[in-house]
């Protein structure tokens, strides 16, 4: 029953998008922090999506997206990369985290980029939820087949 796989596919996409939204939230929360957990300035994080091919049982098979073995393709977060660009430097000698020249290094989060990322991921989330709702209503109608 291939229609049930729609839930696996869209479910994987929804969970990947919510992970992306989580990363955006932590980036936005840290937009003005001077130090991350390692004592260095916080570095912006980005999720990397990867196609997840699903076998007949709904479980994942080989992860090469060019492989046409399976028609259903979900999504997974393959890794979370850190943005290595240098952080924003502000001169403030009185700040306790200032270096020898009096500069404070803030995180390298770009708030505008993160807001765009947030909108994009919430739209994708909504799209996948709608796909699941449509599949659900079609399946419920299929269950009533023949009850005339």
């Amino acid at each position, binding site marked *: 029953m291939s229609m049930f796989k*729609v839930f696996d596919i869209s479910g994987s996409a929804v969970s990947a998008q919510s992970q992306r939204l989580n990363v955006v939230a932590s980036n936005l929360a840290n937009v003005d922090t001077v130090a991350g957990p390692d004592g260095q300035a916080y570095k912006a994080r980005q999720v990397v999506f990867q196609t997840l091919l699903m076998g007949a049982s709904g479980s994942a098979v080989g992860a090469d*997206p060019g492989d046409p073995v399976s028609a259903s393709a979900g999504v997974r977060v393959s890794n979370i990369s850190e943005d290595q660009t240098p952080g924003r430097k502000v001169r403030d000698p009185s700040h306790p985290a200032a270096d020898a020249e009096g500069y404070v290094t803030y995180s390298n989060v770009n708030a505008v980029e993160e807001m765009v990322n947030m909108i994009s991921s919430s739209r*994708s989330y909504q799209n996948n939820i709608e796909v699941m709702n449509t599949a659900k209503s079609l399946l419920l109608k299929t269950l009533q087949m023949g009850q005339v």
Partner: protein
Amino acid sequence: MINRLTDTLDFQTQALTLRAERQRLIASNIANADTPGYIARDMDFASALKQATGALPIPGQMAATQRGHIQPTAGALSESGLRYATASQTNLDRNSVDMDRERASFAENSVKYEATLRFINSGMKTMMDAMKSPSQG
């Protein structure tokens, strides 16, 4: 003899299976709208249905010259029947999912799935009516 009762529904049954298959394909495309390097896929519904009902040979199907040769079951869909979509607007991550096109195909496919369901239901209703005695009205 008894299978003649349901033979008329066979065509719509194949169509319904293929519609469900296409729904799954489009769901995959929508799920991968943000995946770098993903190429959107879709099926040519008309030729897939012709293959499923035996009006067209399945591409890559081997000739059965002996009685024991295995043949794909009716309604089998070959992976080579899937088409890859080209991006309507190029982008840097080589993703070829066009969200507008996918949403439109998704809506179209769900309406046609429901239509096929309705054809099956009305076919069954006709059959049931034919089986009723005149006194049952």
